[in-house]
């Protein structure tokens, strides 16, 4: 991919213009030469990272992140079906909304993780006990918890405590508006880390995978 910068700019433009056909054409043209996994790593992930950074600095809106992530998720599913052996080896991961009824944040992170070629189980909405049970049952290694309401964010502390009592070593990574507003809140609820967006979620996956492979 000699003209990678140009392709990235075009791909990002296509995403922000909701041009799924254009975005697909760009990926397919490069897939012929480089293979699916390479296309995802060199085009999809960096484009979504750039879009996520722009949201963090206030120059793009949540609706644009959502639509871009959704298009990428569909394209990656096409390039790498769920059963594909090119899907990245990974820790067992799940994502959930805790006690809340606001699902968009979870949906965005879910799309972005899958767009990077990972698999992640979507638990939907769970209460504290339901989430603890699911994490233990499925032997989850990383659980992403999304909340919008402040009381729900505080409830994460109960999840962490109950998992610790069960000697479960899952890494709890939290995100959502309350954590963006108060940068110390993730520590207060006893989480392993917080992620402002999908980029940071992917960063934590990479970091934890590195630790696992060492």
């Amino acid at each position, binding site marked *: 991919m000699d003209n990678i910068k140009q392709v990235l700019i075009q791909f990002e433009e296509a995403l922000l213009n*909701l041009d799924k056909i254009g975005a697909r054409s760009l990926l397919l043209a490069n897939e012929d030469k480089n293979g699916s996994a390479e296309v995802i790593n060199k085009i999809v992930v960096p484009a979504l990272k750039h879009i996520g950074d722009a949201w963090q600095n*206030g120059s*793009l*809106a*949540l*609706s*644009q992140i*959502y*639509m871009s992530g959704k298009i990428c998720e569909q394209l990656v599913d096409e390039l790498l079906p769920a059963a594909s052996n090119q899907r990245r080896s990974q820790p067992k991961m799940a994502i959930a909304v805790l006690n*809340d*009824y*606001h*699902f*968009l944040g979870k*949906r965005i992170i879910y799309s972005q993780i899958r767009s990077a070629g990972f698999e992640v189980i979507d638990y939907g909405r769970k209460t504290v006990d339901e989430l603890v049970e699911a994490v233990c049952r499925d032997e989850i290694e990383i659980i992403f918890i999304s909340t919008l*309401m*402040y*009381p*729900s964010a*505080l409830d994460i502390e109960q999840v962490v405590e109950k998992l610790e009592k069960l000697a479960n070593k899952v890494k709890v990574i939290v995100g959502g*508006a*309350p954590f*963006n*507003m*108060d940068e*110390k*809140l993730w520590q*207060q609820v006893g989480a392993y880390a917080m992620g402002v967006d999908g980029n940071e979620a992917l960063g934590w996956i990479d970091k934890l995978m590195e630790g696992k492979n060492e």
Partner: protein
Amino acid sequence: MTPLERVLTTLGHKEPDRVPFFLLLTMHGAKELGMTIKEYFSDGKNVAEGQLRMRAKYGHDCLFPFFYAPIEVEAWGGEVIFNENGPPNSGAPIIQNPKQILNMNAPTIEGNDCLEKVLECIRILKEEAKDEVPIIGVVMSPFSLPVMQMGFEAYLKLIYEKPEVFEYLMKINEEFAVSWANKQIDAGATAITYFDPISSISMVPRELFLKTGFWVAKRTLARIKGPTGVHFASGRCLPIIDDVARLGTSIIGTSVLEDLAEVKSKCNRRLTVLGNLNGIEMCRWTKKEAKEAVKNAIDKAASGGGFILADNHGEIPFQVSEEILITIAKTVNKYGQYPIK
């Protein structure tokens, strides 16, 4: 000055006797009355009593007869789920399929029990406050209400993929918002807060806002028979301040994610700035931190009037202690006297 005179002076971009401050307290009234949140909001008399007691305790410059955000979807037949320690949530969306929308009509305000409770509360407050304290009513923007009516993801799909159905939903939501706002004005509300988080630049790009939320707000606000303020409920607004200034509103609620001085400067006497204490951090503030945050906001935005100190979300979390609320009030009274030193 009475609180109303103080607020009107700042809205005129002049300096009153001190910085006006709105403690936008809702659920704390339940603590005052020793009730659960659900019990408290079951009767307009409770909320009126809670508001009066809280104003007597903290001395802030408004009464806020806002119950909870999902009360409007409740009026449309939706479910409200109460929490012991936080604001009620809306339950399953009333719109499960966009096809339903074209057969929907806005509910009437009269005889709608949940809304009647709010009107009763406003009438009591009006009688008690006479014309000395502004009573701030609330409507959800017709553009933001669908997040509770149908869920955020389905709503985004509707905006992008079904513009005709979106337009119809806006039409019925506008009818509802205008009726609801005007009933509150008739009951005694001094002004209406138009909560519109989805129009925030954090949620949709400006180009989309100008095609959608802007026109919805322009049409709706023009038909409300009293002064209004537009609040983005923690969302960013800096890049759309010029647009908001064209809406015919008086106040803009800004986010803690934006610099208060920059927002004030960009408003340039066209809008009064409301904000922007961090409501989430407020839950764990020490008295010293509370004092510093208030002083900082006053330093940045109070000069020349056109500023009301408040939290950035439009509702102070239940977890914020009485001690911190008293500290905020005391600090405004000490450092917010004009001229600001």
